[in-house]
């Protein structure tokens, strides 16, 4: 098979088409390192502009990889973001000298999207201030590099909370708005990106522009869920809400299908404030249901609780004991489930986060548990985002792929309520084109557990998951970076070429987040 040369900053033909390289492990690779042409002139220009650029291992080493831990690259230099004006100067110089600029928030990408393969790495966490909280209007204006957790810390001093954000303390606001952001309340409140009311953006050519649904709406549409291609989010105005602790309910299933049917039933009927599925492989499936208020919980207890087909903890333990008693050859699997239960369950019930049976600071509880029990130096989390009616098939097929590639894994499923008025935002994003009302996302996360796998093994696993998405007409959260070969297969040439033309107009030297999407 002849693979034609690809011009830098474009999406080339897909090298992983299902009819290509049959029987051979299909690979994706990191982009080539930028050759450094014109770097010294660029450094001189920044110096003249007063933009501080750090170099050397101590400065660049922090950014050598992302949360995925499979893509490694070093920038030539690092700029810590301090203001929109400073970023504007940086991007203007980068356009002139054609130096790639990779933007990083929390660095929680998994496909190398926030890893700089040469050029400048712009660390947005330097812009982490909360600028204004309007408790009456329930809005906050914040700098874009702030971690959601830092935002939560500030909001809690006013007894407020954000609406929805990734269950990870170290996601940044700007980064999340650029890709989506799902929470266990997204089935009710939508994804994080839909919470933004307005943004201050520095465009790839260095203009500082305010945008919203009413002001510069086209830029707003492209930046929200735009994977960092059309501008850098330096400030954001977000909706917030009064803080509430949660009353949690857990239901346990041994069938993925049944659990997903129950999840979707709850979502369709607005029966809970929070809902999501977290599994230990496909043997122990946990449906989490939670409430902000006693009234909502009482309504659930009266109308919906009896319709759920999951077990309580004790009932499920009995069920599993019977299941494995009849299948002694699955002894190791049973032991693994027991061990995970012993390790993980106490994390969700730590006394210092519980008051009167309610959980406080759920993001802290979940995020710390995620890093402690699921995190490692390598994290490979391919995902599928589908319409509601395709979701069960997507999860079941993805689960089969997980079983094939890894001994142990976790699935995390959640619904995402879509905004009717935000259709244009969703174009060429993680939101599948055929989703109406809700989209559903599932992350497939192998438990690495100190195991050693080759990058090829990881890549083959991701490809197998993504092939399901192509087959079903789904979308993905993580389609950039190492997975960008799938972009044309998922979205089609016409749409990709239209966005590429927009990108070329907005970013003539194609410097901003090069190789992430284009």
């Amino acid at each position: 098979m002849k693979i034609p040369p690809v011009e830098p900053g474009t999406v080339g033909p897909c090298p992983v088409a299902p009819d290509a390289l049959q029987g051979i492990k299909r690979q994706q690779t990191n982009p080539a390192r930028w050759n450094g042409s014109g770097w010294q002139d660029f450094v001189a220009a920044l110096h003249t502009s007063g933009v501080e650029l750090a170099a050397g291992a101590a400065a660049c080493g922090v950014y050598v990889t992302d949360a995925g831990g499979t893509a490694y690259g070093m920038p030539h230099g690092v700029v810590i973001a301090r203001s929109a004006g400073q970023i504007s100067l940086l991007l203007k110089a980068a356009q002139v000298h054609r130096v790639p600029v990779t933007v990083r928030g929390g660095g929680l990408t998994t496909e190398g999207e926030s890893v700089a393969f040469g050029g400048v790495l712009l660390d947005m966490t330097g812009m982490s201030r909360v600028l204004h909280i309007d408790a009456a209007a329930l809005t906050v204006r914040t700098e874009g590099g702030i971690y959601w957790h830092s935002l939560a810390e500030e909001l809690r001093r006013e007894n407020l909370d954000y609406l929805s954000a990734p269950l990870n303390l170290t996601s940044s606001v700007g980064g999340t708005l650029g890709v989506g952001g799902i929470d266990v309340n997204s089935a009710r409140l939508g994804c994080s990106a839909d919470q933004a009311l307005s943004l201050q953006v520095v465009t790839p050519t260095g203009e500082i522009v305010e945008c919203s649904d009413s002001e510069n709406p086209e830029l707003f549409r492209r930046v929200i869920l735009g994977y960092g291609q059309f501008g850098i989010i330096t400030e954001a105005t977000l909706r917030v809400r009064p803080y509430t602790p949660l009353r949690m309910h857990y239901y346990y299933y041994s069938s993925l299908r049944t659990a997903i049917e129950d999840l979707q039933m709850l979502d369709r009927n607005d029966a809970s404030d929070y809902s999501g599925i977290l599994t230990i492989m496909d043997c122990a499936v946990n449906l989490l249901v939670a409430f902000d208020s006693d009234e909502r919980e009482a309504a659930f207890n009266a109308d919906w609780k009896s319709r759920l087909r999951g077990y309580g903890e004790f009932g499920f333990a009995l069920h599993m004991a019977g299941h494995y008693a009849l299948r002694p050859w699955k002894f190791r699997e049973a032991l693994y489930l027991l061990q995970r239960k012993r390790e993980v369950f106490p994390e969700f019930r730590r006394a210092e986060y519980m008051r009167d049976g309610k959980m406080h600071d759920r993001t802290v509880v979940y995020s710390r548990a995620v890093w402690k029990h699921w995190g490692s130096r390598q994290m490979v989390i391919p995902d599928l985002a589908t319409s509601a009616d395709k979701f069960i098939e997507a999860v079941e097929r993805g689960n089969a792929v997980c079983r094939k590639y890894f001994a142990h894994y976790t699935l995390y499923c959640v619904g995402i309520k879509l905004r009717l008025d935000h259709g244009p935002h969703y174009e060429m994003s993680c939101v599948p084109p055929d989703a109406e009302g809700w989209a559903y996302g599932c992350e497939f996360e192998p438990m690495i557990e100190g195991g050693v796998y080759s990058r090829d093994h990881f890549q083959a696993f991701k490809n197998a998951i993504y092939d399901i998405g192509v087959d079903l007409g789904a979308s993905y959260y993580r389609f950039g970076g190492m997975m960008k070969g799938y972009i044309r297969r998922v979205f089609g040439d016409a749409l990709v070429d239209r966005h590429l033309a927009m990108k070329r107009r907005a970013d003539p030297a194609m410097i901003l987040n090069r190789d992430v999407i284009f």
Partner: protein
Amino acid sequence: MSAFLARAPAAPRDYAACSGCSLCVLVCPMWRGSHDPRLTPEGLAKGLQSGATIAQLAGAIEACFLCGACDPVCPERIDLSGMIMDLRLRSANSRPPNSPQPSVMVELSARLQMAAGAAPAAGVVSNSVPVLLPGPDLRADAALLARVQALLGLAVFDDDGADIALALELGVEIPQQRLHGFLDSLRGHTIVAADGLLLRQLRRWLPGLQRMGLGPALSTRAAVRSNLVPSDLYVIEPRAFHGDYERMVGYYDRLQRETGCSLSLDLQRIAIPATSSGLPQKLGLAAGDDVQAKWILKGHKPARIVVESLADRAAFARVCHVPVVHLAELGEDPQMMQKFRHAFG
């Protein structure tokens, strides 16, 4: 099977295990002040992984408060503050022989050498008696020290290891003879220590030693605890708290439930340090700022601030107008006041 299910806790790991999760960044007071990821434990660990030299990392090594907030949040169980203390020591040892050293460090080295050569302070307090290691701040406040002694009923240990605690902080080599002499003198005693960093290290050096921070020791006393009220903001000494996190987070959670007071904890239940205590401040080369104390107070309207550390009392007194009292000053039950009249003025 039980052995398989009950995994023994693993030993702390070193910087090579850092996965870059950034959880330590969220709790790092240096990051809060600078928003510069290089000045964080993650920045140091990643720098070391990438081959940075100690000289290249000097800024971060010196800036660290050694508050220990990063230790309990690290999912990889890296001994981050231990790593930074070790880097400080290596940084000091890698100075060219004739380069000028801060006078504090020179004097401390001489004190340590002298103490190493001296006979251990044995026999001052008989073995197995609980003792108090007050540290220099509490020693300097005779009235408060007397109150603490009265409340706890403890003898003050003459050799309270203040030189060792300072050496740990500044990165000064502790002569083995001095260290072993100090540790030998503590064996068999139950220890209450005011210096959180020393307490943290004692936990590692003498794992079987019965020990407690000054805050928990005082706040378990009914005379103190009963005077904590919901309108109080209780400021925890962070080093002792983080050095024994699993036990302490439970202890203070119960304290809060029982008294209703607010605690100086963030949403991760990590104690926010109230004072800047990087190397430049310790060496007297830079003044501390009040950023941390202001952050603790943000959104709170306490009627009174109760501190465990004397340094924190000064910091809050600078930034607010509500009464700031040391924990020991709460314990004013009539019987004790009668018995220790001199301490209560």
